[in-house]
């Protein structure tokens, strides 16, 4: 299932699972990631699964590229297309004008009404391909064909924390205030990354399913009071 393994620098393996981006290939990446993580192979320091790649960093004091490559090539994983312990997570989202920063741009460029855009976005169940860039940020897909738009020409210097954005076939949630160029259509009050929870810091993990549901501005403001 790994097409080929090359080196990325002197302390990482670069495993390529194919050139396309789809859930079948990504599911293979995630299965390898979970399997290798469980095996606790000596010398491995980090695993970074993405759409169609898996990067395995290692400690050069304990192993090297050739030895680790052999160990990874020997792993046998069945081609059944399922991920164990897959969760479904429901995310509240407020789409009021003050949070839907790019709804006018989306409406204009996609030639759809605001209502249609939100309906198409909320009607789908999403798959988490990977998490990262910044801590806990989920890369979700695939969004409706009619919602696909390129990134902003000039990225924002600051995207507010909790912003939900879309571009191309993907959606994501900004877990921290950060620069970014995705088209923002709402904001979630839910905490996606919690640095105080060391056992389960990320709410959404690769392979999980995600559903969004709309909340009012009132509910948004009250959301974190309940606890």
């Amino acid at each position: 299932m790994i097409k080929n393994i090359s080196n990325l620098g002197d302390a990482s393996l670069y495993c390529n699972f194919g050139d396309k981006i789809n859930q079948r290939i990504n599911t293979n990446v995630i299965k390898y990631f979970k399997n290798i993580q469980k095996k606790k192979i000596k010398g491995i320091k980090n695993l970074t699964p993405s759409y169609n790649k898996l990067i395995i960093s290692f400690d050069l004091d304990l192993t090297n590229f050739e030895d680790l490559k052999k160990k990874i090539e020997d792993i046998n994983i069945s081609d059944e297309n399922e991920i164990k312990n897959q969760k479904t997570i429901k995310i509240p989202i407020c789409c009021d004008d003050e949070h839907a920063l790019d709804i006018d741009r989306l409406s204009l460029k996609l030639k759809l009404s605001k209502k249609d855009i939100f309906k198409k976005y909320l009607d789908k169940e999403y798959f988490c391909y990977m998490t990262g860039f910044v801590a806990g940020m989920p890369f979700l897909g695939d969004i409706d064909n009619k919602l696909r738009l390129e990134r902003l020409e000039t990225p924002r210097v600051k995207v507010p924390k909790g912003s939900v954005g879309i571009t191309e076939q993907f959606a994501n949630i900004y877990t921290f205030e950060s620069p970014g160029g995705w088209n923002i259509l709402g904001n979630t009050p839910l905490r996606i990354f919690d640095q105080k929870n060391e056992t389960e810091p990320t709410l959404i993990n690769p392979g999980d399913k995600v559903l969004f549901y709309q909340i009012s501005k009132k509910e948004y403001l009250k959301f974190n009071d309940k606890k």
Partner: protein
Amino acid sequence: MTKNKIIVLREGINSTFQDLGRDNFYHIGLPFSGAMDKRNYLIVNKLVGNQHNEAVIEFAYQGPLLKIEEGNINFAISGDVKFNIKKDDKLFNGQCYKTYFLSENDEIDIISTNKSVYGYFAVSGGFELNKNFGSFSTTVRANVGSNNGNKLSKNEKFLIKHIKNKNISKNIEYINSKVEYIRILKGTNFDYFSDESINDLTSKKFLVSKLSDRMGMRLQGSKIKNMKETNIRSEGLIKGVIQVPADGDPIIMLSDHGTIGGYPKIAVVISADYDKLIQTPPGNTVKFKLIELKEAENLYKLYQMETENLLNQI
């Protein structure tokens, strides 16, 4: 028993607690972080008699001004650093790679790093801090690490664990070597770039831009021309990767880098040269030399042997 406590009178430009970094969290978006210059980190901890994974204060350019508020400390500083010590109201210049014993009201003023970027301040016994995700290292962008994931700030106070041996007096001779070349390996998108640009990358000087920090080092020089695609599908990154965005100016990923990126990877800095790379200050230039994997592995062994030898002298 009296406590040993220091207060931060001036925080410095980028002062954070660091150790050897954090493994196994790339998949949730947390980078290694940890001390940028691993060798200087290991040396300074050994000088004050600490375990190799004790937290130290890393500073960049201008360091903090610290005052002993209660008790005593034994400290050392590593790097190429200019600093003053005020002991019993007398002011004198401090020397790197040497331990000092200070008492209440004494001060350490870390003025600047000379022709380098990072320096390290360690205290015997270590600071009283909490680990986060198994490490003291601070990742400011994710608010992760000791001190709630923040840089040091003015008037903050830190406790120092009990000092076992009050009169450690140690020093070593060490000069932070400068290198002519930073050695690199071909990246996974090496063939996206024109022959002329590959030639430029491996023969011309590149200026380290002011927009460099613990996340990345931006370079300016000959524009690197991409012949294929200026964006790739987002995938994992590691420290040392040289990415080239559409504008043709290379960016080297450093210890706090984003874990995923979508720019083509032209090359990767070898592990043995990382400490030297990150000590190159903005305004200076770097030159790259392309080598093979086997050579990089051997150079790493040599680097480790040198580090071991230095640590054994302490």
